[in-house]
């Protein structure tokens, strides 16, 4: 029996539906839960706030992508001393549609640290996660980009990393036969990226799941003290004009997989997790900054894997380096010049390379409702994080010159706009530790509905069931106690998979 995908515009009356399990969110966590539960023969409803954009309707211009696929049109920011863009998808498939397709397993040391500190160990067994990662690798075609589609932005970084004697590798990505179109952030135009909209969501529908897209979950249905569904409302994907309501009833469980930004807001609005006082608190992420290199030979960032090469050499020092091919619309805004100088620089855009450093920051932020009822994200790196960022920018600069860059544009207020020797980056360490000096973005959010054993120090238990509301599960990166220093997509899928297996076992009476 095949299910269906229903969106705003297709419904004019309130919709009521019932399934065994209702899942909120269709990104890495939600779609994976859908995949596992439907495989077990469990009837599933998926509620997704964003629209479904089929591959053939994806366009190459960044703005159209922002409008249809990204949360708040790419304008979501964390506020602190500086404004930090916080990047997330808002569409069927969630952030997997617009990310760099990077698949990294959670480092064992991070897992051990969680166990030592918080006593995780119920649902989360590392060997179980490894079993699931292996399966995900097969199902999502995880591998490195072939050499002929890697692109120069990546091979130049490899040259710089190897030249300095550092450890680096081609990035493992969930892309099948990558064509090197460098459009990962706009949604893969060839459908090669094995994002959730192309894989687990259609698979779940094939097995009978109903997906209600452009429908914002608002209120949990609670009966007999247990989670029994969700009430949402269809919204126009662009104007947010309200449409009919959706009442999605769950016979057995509700899975919240709406991301570490949206999940705590939903929990907060429904008074879940108040005992701990931790809902929306302890927000962690991976702030990052990019450095631009100017090369004599063409780089042509518009060909190749967006993010095809990385160095985890300094992972122990809480830094990870990646190539980041930026579309023209992004890259142009990152350049320091204006006027005729900017036009000259854009004329040689094909000679620019962009690589970034992401920091395993120790700072904590929060996601709350502000006085006007709007979602408010507070985030600021601390001084130690900023010192790391400086060191990361220095190392990126060294890699750039090692690989043959003629000039480097460090993008730091207080430094020259362009430098032509490694020594010229040294003054970065004399600058104050102020986040406003850098153009940072934050991705990979964690920790806003943290898991743990006790209801006083966590929101969900090790099976990822809410302490405050039985049958309500949270399976996205909100439950991760800390950030990880690597891209979380693979781990988010695996943790949600494991939790979904637990739900399926429970329903089967095992």
């Amino acid at each position, binding site marked *: 029996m095949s299910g269906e995908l229903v969106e705003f515009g297709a419904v004019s009356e309130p919709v009521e539906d019932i399934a065994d399990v209702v899942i909120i969110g269709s990104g890495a966590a939600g779609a994976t839960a859908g995949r596992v539960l439907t495989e077990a023969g469990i009837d599933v409803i998926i509620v997704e706030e964003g629209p479904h954009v089929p591959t053939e309707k994806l366009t190459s211009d960044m703005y159209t992508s922002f409008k249809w696929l990204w949360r708040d049109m790419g304008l979501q920011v964390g506020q602190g001393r500086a404004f930090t863009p916080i990047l997330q998808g808002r569409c069927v498939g969630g952030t997997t549609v617009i990310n760099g397709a990077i698949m990294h397993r959670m480092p064992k040391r991070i897992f051990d640290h969680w166990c030592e500190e918080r006593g995780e160990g119920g649902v989360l067994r590392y060997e179980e996660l490894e079993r699931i990662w292996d399966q995900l690798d097969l199902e999502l075609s995880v591998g490195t980009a072939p050499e002929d589609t890697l692109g120069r932005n990546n091979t130049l970084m490899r040259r710089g990393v190897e030249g300095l004697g550092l450890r680096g590798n081609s990035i493992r990505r969930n892309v099948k036969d990558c064509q090197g179109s460098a459009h990962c952030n706009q949604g893969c135009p060839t459908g090669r990226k094995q994002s959730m909209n192309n894989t687990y969501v259609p698979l779940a529908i094939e097995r009978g799941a109903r997906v209600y897209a452009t429908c914002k979950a608002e209120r949990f249905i609670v009966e007999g003290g247990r989670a029994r569904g969700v009430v949402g409302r269809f919204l126009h994907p662009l104007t947010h004009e309200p449409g009919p309501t959706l009442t999605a009833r769950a016979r057995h469980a509700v899975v919240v997989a709406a991301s570490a930004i949206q999940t705590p807001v939903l929990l907060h609005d429904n008074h879940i997790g108040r005992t701990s006082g931790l809902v929306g608190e302890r927000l962690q992420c991976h702030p990052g900054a990019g450095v631009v290199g100017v090369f004599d030979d063409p780089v*042509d960032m518009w060909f190749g894997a967006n993010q095809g090469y990385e160095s985890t050499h300094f992972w122990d020092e809480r830094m990870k380096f990646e190539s980041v091919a930026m579309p023209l619309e992004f890259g*142009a805004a990152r350049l320091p010049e204006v*006027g005729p100088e900017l036009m000259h620089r854009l004329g040689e855009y*094909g000679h620019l390379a962009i690589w970034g450093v992401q920091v395993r920051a120790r700072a904590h932020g929060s996601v709350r409702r502000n006085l006007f009822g709007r979602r408010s994200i507070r985030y600021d790196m601390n001084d130690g994080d900023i010192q790391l960022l400086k060191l990361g920018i220095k190392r990126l600069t060294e890699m750039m010159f090692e690989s043959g860059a003629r000039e480097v544009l460090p993008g730091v207020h207080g430094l020259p706009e362009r430098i032509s020797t490694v020594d010229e980056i040294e003054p970065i360490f004399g600058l104050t530790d102020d986040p406003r000096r850098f153009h940072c973005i934050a991705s990979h959010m964690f920790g806003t509905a943290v898991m743990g054993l006790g209801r006083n120090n966590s929101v969900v238990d090790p099976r990822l069931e809410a302490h405050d509301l039985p049958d309500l599960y949270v399976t996205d990166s909100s439950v991760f106690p800390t950030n990880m220093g690597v891209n979380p997509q693979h781990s988010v899928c695996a943790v949600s998979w494991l939790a979904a297996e637990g739900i399926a076992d429970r329903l089967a009476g095992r």
Partner: protein
Amino acid sequence: MKLLAFERRWLRAIFEAILPSNADDQLSLGVADVPIDRFVDDVLEHAPGQFKAGLRASLWVVALSPLFVIGRFKTFDRLDARARSEVLRCLAQSDIYLVREQPLLFKMVACLGYGGMPAVQRQIGIHPTDSSPPDWAREPERE
């Protein structure tokens, strides 16, 4: 949110100062050569309210900044090209964070529209995936 006529004039002047036409041998197209007004209309129709309010506030700051930045009692759009560039550069290098974010904001918006045009991409050497302009850039169909 709609901009008033003079606000739109200010905005065009800022955009054209950031991305001028005929300033580079290879890249002759400037922001004035693409349908940037339609892009602005689309942004103002769809962007979050806070962003739109911030954009308008920034517009006033930059438009009135020549007096404070280069000592000229004129709005930004009444300056010549060289003075406009100088104002934007001074703002971008300010030690006050919120001030130096102003030109960055306009650069971000201008580049988002400008860089998405296949004609611009072709001049830079990019082979655009989409041969036709984005939806926002197309002439509205007449009834």
